[in-house]
């Protein structure tokens, strides 16, 4: 198929950006979206132009690195699908595709479609862990049974890939889905309960400090999340947060 691409080009964080138009030909339906971008880039390089910069690594939907806003939706038209797992069979010959970076003040653009998501790392550093050293002298792994339902729910929350689509989808650029997924995972497990109150307070404080917006429960995040992280996590985090406000802090 032949396609028209309208791609956001921005040479640096402070530069002004603009949409540029490109044509690509003979795109196979079996290609992934990023392979289609490879074709575009090879074409640009051969013409002596600058290729489009975008983030990617695993190309199988797990590293969370790819991050394109395609036709007005983070990761494009298919539900539960990252950009790298989107295949060109989702488009048809003659289509025009708009490709932009994530837009959020906490995710500044670095170049073209690449953004800086280190704010997510700093939120995790604020408390997204269990304070245990690697002494090798921890309890036997089976010493504390964990009800299967809790373990499964913790796992579901833990499958967040940290891509930031939830933020990009939200009109307030809220990071609640991402943060609540980590808070939920750890608060559901006996090992994580000990620090639950401190954790949620610190992570929420950092989230606010990074400039993420407030949550008004529009549900856009859940709808666009490639891993199907559920809004229930936000409700659970809100409960954890309320509980934490009632427990005297350190």
């Amino acid at each position, binding site marked *: 198929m032949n396609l028209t691409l309208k791609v956001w080009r921005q040479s640096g964080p402070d530069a002004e950006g603009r949409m540029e138009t490109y044509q690509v030909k003979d795109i196979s339906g079996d290609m992934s979206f990023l392979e289609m971008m490879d074709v575009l880039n090879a074409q640009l390089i051969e013409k002596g132009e600058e290729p489009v910069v975008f983030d990617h*690594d695993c190309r199988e939907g797990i*590293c969370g690195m790819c991050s394109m806003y395609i036709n007005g939706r983070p990761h494009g038209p298919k539900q539960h699908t990252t950009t790298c797992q989107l295949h060109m069979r989702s488009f048809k010959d003659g289509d025009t595709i708009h490709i932009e970076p994530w837009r959020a003040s906490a995710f500044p653009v*670095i170049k073209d479609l690449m953004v800086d998501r*280190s704010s997510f790392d700093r939120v995790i550093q604020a408390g997204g862990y269990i304070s*245990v050293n690697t002494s090798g002298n921890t309890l036997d792994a089976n010493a504390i049974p964990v009800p299967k339902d809790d*373990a499964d729910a*913790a796992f579901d929350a833990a*499958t967040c890939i940290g891509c930031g689509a939830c933020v990009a989808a939200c009109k307030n650029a809220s990071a609640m889905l991402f943060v609540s997924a980590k808070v939920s995972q750890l608060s559901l497990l006996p090992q994580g309960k000990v620090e639950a109150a401190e954790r949620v307070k610190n992570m929420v404080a950092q989230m606010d400090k990074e400039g993420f917006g407030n949550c008004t429960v529009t549900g856009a995040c859940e709808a666009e999340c490639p891993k199907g992280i559920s809004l229930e996590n936000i409700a659970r985090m809100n409960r954890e947060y309320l509980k934490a406000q009632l427990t005297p802090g350190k």
Partner: protein
Amino acid sequence: MTDMTKLDAKIPEGPIDKKWTKHKNNINLVNPANKRLIDVIVVGTGLAGSSAAASLAEMGYNVKAFCFQDSPRRAHSIAAQGGINAAKNYQNDGDSTYRLFYDTVKGGDYRSREANVHRLAEVSTNIIDQCVAQGVPFAREYGGLLDNRSFGGVQVSRTFYAKGQTGQQLLLGAYSALSRQISKGKVKLYNRHEMMDLVIVDGKARGIIARNLITGEIQRHSAHAVVLCTGGYGNVFYLSTNAMGSNVTAAWKAHRRGAFMANPCFTQIHPTCIPVSGDYQSKLTLMSESLRNDGRIWVPKKKEDAQAIRDGKLKPTQIKEEDRDYYLERRYPAFGNLVPRDVASRAAKERCDAGFGVNKTGQAVYLDFADAITRYGKTEARVQGIENPSDAKVKELGTKVVSAKYGNLFEMYEKIVDENPYETPMMIFPAVHYTMGGLWVDYNLMTTVPGCFACGEANFSDHGANRLGASALMQGLADGYFVLPYTIGGFLADDIRTGPIADDSPEFMKAESEVKERLEKLLSAKGTKPVDYFHRKLGLLMWDNCGMSRNAENLKKTIEDIRALREEFWKDVRVPGKSGETNPELEKANRVLDFLELGELMCKDALDREESCGGHFREEYQTEEGEALRDDENFKFVSAYEYTGDPGAAVLHKEELVYEAIEVKTRSYK
């Protein structure tokens, strides 16, 4: 050239099961106050790097951690699917430290170092305890205890898992430990930074040259020791299951600075990957080995059926049971579909070469879940008290069970291939997956450059000529959490009075300017072709001649071809942009250049090793039944290559392998 100087692996004395404890008790310690005076650079934040950096920081060292991705959590380890081994014996099926040790040595076709493997088996149980304490949500049974599954090459259930996302969950655990140390200021993180060279001062590794991938700035970073946890080099084949950015640059730079490269030709070709669909393809996707617990591998018995399938005239579900060849079950009745990877891959290639392949290109076999769905469905019906369930009901129930186990893998398959694997068998084919070869390290995980250590897939240590499934995650975390943090003390104990290492010594300045020159040279090559063109070409050469089967004639020719390709690269590559900016094409060019040298060394190693063992199959050395023919008399050693200015002129050093605890036998899975 061969040099018979003995490499000193520094294997501790004493019985195999006492070596590690004894060694740990004898290692020089650095006391906590002195650790504050010592800086360690850890390159890589995968399982090995994150766990090492976090543990070193907890112990009190000042750590600088580097990764080229935007976040440490995105290291390639995140993509590991199936599971992690540990000799917990929770299933009470006779597992033990010894059995894990034995399986790993045998699985590696008797080409790994006994003492290292035993230590790995010993610490394996600690890993699971540690991960659970960190909040890793492993799969559990209804009673709340941890669940296990089986992987290839073993007859016990010792694999712990978190659906098809085990690597993700383990890495997020290690990343959380790392994040905690970052928040305490004990680790300084350099994300989106790439190591460009290793700096050696007075014979010791004392730092690295790095490039900030956003600004393009070239930086000098000094430390008392450098730990490379930079992963494997499977991407030398261009198409592999590795992430796009996985590369050999850090290890290759260390090699060029004096670290020996061990067994570079030992590559793992994984039997169950989604087949190649077209020339534009940028990577291959694994379907976890755990699927072989329940999936049965087959091709049609009759050539005409295979042809009809290829022509789209017949569907696999229309082939009758008696017309199917479950060739693994046929050839290896004892292990069946769970033979080790090298064996399963070769068997698939053999069937496809003989004309029984089942996709358009003839390069695919079936992995079929129909029987598993029926079996599980019947059991579920019984559990739920449904009498005489209909076929549809059985299928519905069975599909649910299979989905709970492998749901995300089935989804991934469907996204890529556009077929529903619950309804029709998956098509799979072998693909490059893992590299057993890597930097040579001694028992302390130190390379031949003092102060330069290597952990995880970047070293060669534990898997011999073939790695068993679910053992890479185990090794990465063992190295990072439980081995390196202790063994590095033996080296650093001499450095408590050294003081900070200067980063403006002549050695640093020289290395820095060499890096800058190389980048400028790449940017000024005014050719016409993008870097990928050369990478693809190299990949094809490697796949055809240094892949699943190899022979002397082709290897010799390939060495010449690779040398010619290197020349062509310099003449005809075009790298756009500048060095002082975000420039992914420049990053790629720099990595491919190293692959172009590594590829030659791999072929040389494959040529030197005149035997077949594990993943290294030389056509000249096979039994009448087509099984690998090992030569223990002449090749029971680790090949360790010393760089001498040209990859083809590397000097071979041999580490003889001595087996005291295990009797060396022909490996059989029949």
